[in-house]
């Protein structure tokens, strides 16, 4: 119903959209692996990778701004890398006073910047992938790339019911809003309840959603069993890749392999 606004897929008529989902998934994974393997300090390689991501964003017609801002979602996770600022040995840049007694190093800062940039780059490609590929196609691609079927099935079910759950949450919020009223003749009365009470209500809503999700999972499983589910997920085979798609896949993988190799030889 309304939760579908959450779907990151943006239909366009671009060449990236037209690419076979198996090729896109394969290249995206290869891009992320290459980015991860690029040694710290190999900035020229980072820039080439960034250019590749920008070019793909342009070709996909999703909008460079859209891709770059969406990819900022990765930054909070880069915070996990904060300790490298002070744990990397090298030339001291700044010393924190006694109780902390930590020393920032130039190498540490460079390393952290590299990690943050690399995670941003990886997420850019992932944003383009999910923005240009309908999710069901992505699931088929996962199966084709031999990602364990059970895992693909779990991801698929999660996707299917995420929207149901989001809709349910939306309706709960609406019901709460409907009864959040101001009395006609209650001048001067404090409306809205205390913070603790509002928190308790919100907690009740979360608990309710949780219980219902559990119940729904039981019902879904029963419905799957009723149609013969035996723990094995089956799907119709996909048609083989055409020559053009193989060429794109090959060229993309070769470029990424070259970049990874150059990174190792020159900076590794």
């Amino acid at each position, binding site marked *: 119903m309304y939760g579908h606004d959450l779907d990151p897929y943006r239909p366009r008529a671009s060449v990236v959209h037209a690419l076979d989902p198996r090729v896109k998934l394969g290249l995206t994974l290869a891009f992320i692996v290459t980015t991860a393997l690029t040694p710290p300090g190999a900035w020229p390689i980072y820039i080439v990778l960034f250019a590749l991501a920008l070019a793909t964003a342009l070709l996909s017609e999703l909008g460079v701004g859209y891709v770059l801002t969406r990819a900022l979602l990765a930054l909070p996770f880069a915070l996990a890398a904060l300790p490298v600022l002070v744990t990397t040995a090298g030339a001291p840049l700044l010393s924190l006073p006694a109780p902390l007694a930590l020393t920032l190093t130039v190498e540490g800062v460079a390393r952290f910047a590299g990690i943050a940039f690399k995670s941003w780059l990886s997420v850019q490609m992932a944003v383009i992938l999910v923005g240009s590929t309908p999710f069901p196609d992505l699931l088929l691609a996962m199966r084709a790339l031999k990602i364990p079927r059970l895992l693909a099935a779990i991801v698929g079910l999660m996707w299917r019911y995420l929207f149901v759950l989001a809709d349910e949450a939306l309706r709960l919020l609406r019901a709460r809003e409907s009864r959040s009223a101001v009395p006609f003749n209650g001048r001067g009365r404090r409306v809205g309840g205390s913070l603790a009470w509002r928190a308790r*209500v919100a907690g009740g809503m979360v608990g*309710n959603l949780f219980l219902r999700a559990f119940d729904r999972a039981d019902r879904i499983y029963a419905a799957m069993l009723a149609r013969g589910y035996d723990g094995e997920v089956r799907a119709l085979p996909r048609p083989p890749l055409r020559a053009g798609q193989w060429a794109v896949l090959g060229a993309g993988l070769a470029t990424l392999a070259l970049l990874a190799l150059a990174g190792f030889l020159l900076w590794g």
Partner: protein
Amino acid sequence: MHHTIEIEHLSYTYPDGRRALRDVSLQIGMGEKVALVGPNGAGKSTLLLHLNGILTSTEGRVRACGLEMRKENLGKVRAGVGLVFQNPDDQLFSPTVFDDVAFGLLYQGLPEAEVRARVAQALGTVGIADFGSRASYRLSTGEKKRVALATVLAMDPEILVLDEPTSGLDPRGRRSFITLLRSLPQTMLVATHDLNLVRELLPRTVVLDGGRVVADGATADILTDVPLLAAHGLEE
């Protein structure tokens, strides 16, 4: 005396571009009991969500209890319009029945003694006076429907807006729910597929199809107009 609900030339388009309401105009007077019927997807629920400002449209005007749907009025509108959702599970979001019925009252900042008295009264009205400490989650559909109604009755609204009040109820549950609705004095607008309920309870009927009001008149006339009912998928 003001009309309780006034809708003038209301149109609404969902964010995805789907047109849900087209130029709907409707007046409902104090104490009237009106049915809103039409096929699935006709826009009934969308229209109901406009009556307390959950959805607002830039095309057309909606007034309830004499109040314009403006941000500063929404609090009072929601005190005046009691909206009961189709699925009681949406309405009941608290751990216990008492918490759910008390929600609107606590939000309004009423003193504890009054909250307790009004919750007890509302639960008594819907015939489940001793349910206060039960978990909403564990009730039967019929019981949940009653609690959902109590959650708005406790707020003493001027208008009751009900979405499919009898759906999912067994014949006995349906019968006793209709008896309960009959005993309530409020102005009512009821969206439903249950034409027997309409015949018994609601003297006026509005037919909505494709987001438009296609008929508005006495229930006795509309429910005997076989071609009209057939044209809008309402034959019995």
